[in-house]
């Protein structure tokens, strides 16, 4: 999580309210796994158009999948993450849902 130090959010009560609002909403991650079939151009296109990632971000994630074997491509509330995993399966990508640490 990013820090609010130095920002206009100096009031402690406001910080707490922000945490309560944002933390429980992002507990799930969408993980895409490497496989030898899906093409780099295809994966990159899916990341850019489905998630709306920039070209740079999409290519970074695609290379991360390729070299590390997996990458977290999105995170959010459970329903949202489930929808994303199903969409990735529809594109033929190996994707799983996991609880964020």
């Amino acid at each position, binding site marked *: 999580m990013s820090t609010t130090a130095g920002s206009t959010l100096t009031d402690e009560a406001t910080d707490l309210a922000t945490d309560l609002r944002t933390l429980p909403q992002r507990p799930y991650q969408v993980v895409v796994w490497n496989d030898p079939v899906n093409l780099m151009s295809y994966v990159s296109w899916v990341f850019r158009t489905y998630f709306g990632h920039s070209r740079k971000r999409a290519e970074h994630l695609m290379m991360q999948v390729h070299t590390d074997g997996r990458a977290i491509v999105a995170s959010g509330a459970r329903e949202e993450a489930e929808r994303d995993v199903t969409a990735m399966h529809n*594109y033929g990508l190996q994707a799983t*849902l996991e609880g964020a640490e």
Partner: protein
Amino acid sequence: MARAFRATTRGYKADLETHERRLLSQLCADVITMLQQRGQDIAGEESPDDEFAHFRAELAGLGAGLDEEDDGGLQPPQDAVLARLLPDASADPEEAAQFRRLAESSLRESKIADLRAARLALESNTVALSEAQAPVFGRALNDVRLTLSARLGIETESDAEQVHSAAGQGSAATTEEFMGELYAFSTWLQETLFSAMLDVLPDDQ
């Protein structure tokens, strides 16, 4: 000789030989059949040919019935192709089974719809796709490639390279070599389509 996908003023087009598009269309039809069969197998398991099953379940007692509801997950397909087309959504088998119970049937239906649309696009030697049709065709082509890769046992990048280099020689004599040729051809076609599609995306930060 086939001519690769390229961008046009209203989408993308490629020129295929008649036998190439017929083969691709047949592969799409094969994948549709497999997905439909999976649906029928599940329906068969859930409502076996037993008119009194529901009645007996009720007699067996409320407690037992509740237990069944609790672990009402759906097991992954045993066939390698279906397992690849309909993957687990979680590393935890129990959670994956629960998710599959809710999501697999609509995933099968969307894949079948994509594959049917691809078959329509493959009805003429010039395969013309609008901006909206291109991703649909691309997904269907990808499902065909996943199917072939599972049949060919492609599990690593070097497996894939081997299939590609063997296919380049154009002397397929066995079913496996022929599948390898089809894999290489559909890979090439998909690569040209998505390179063209990436080219027209607005360049951002």
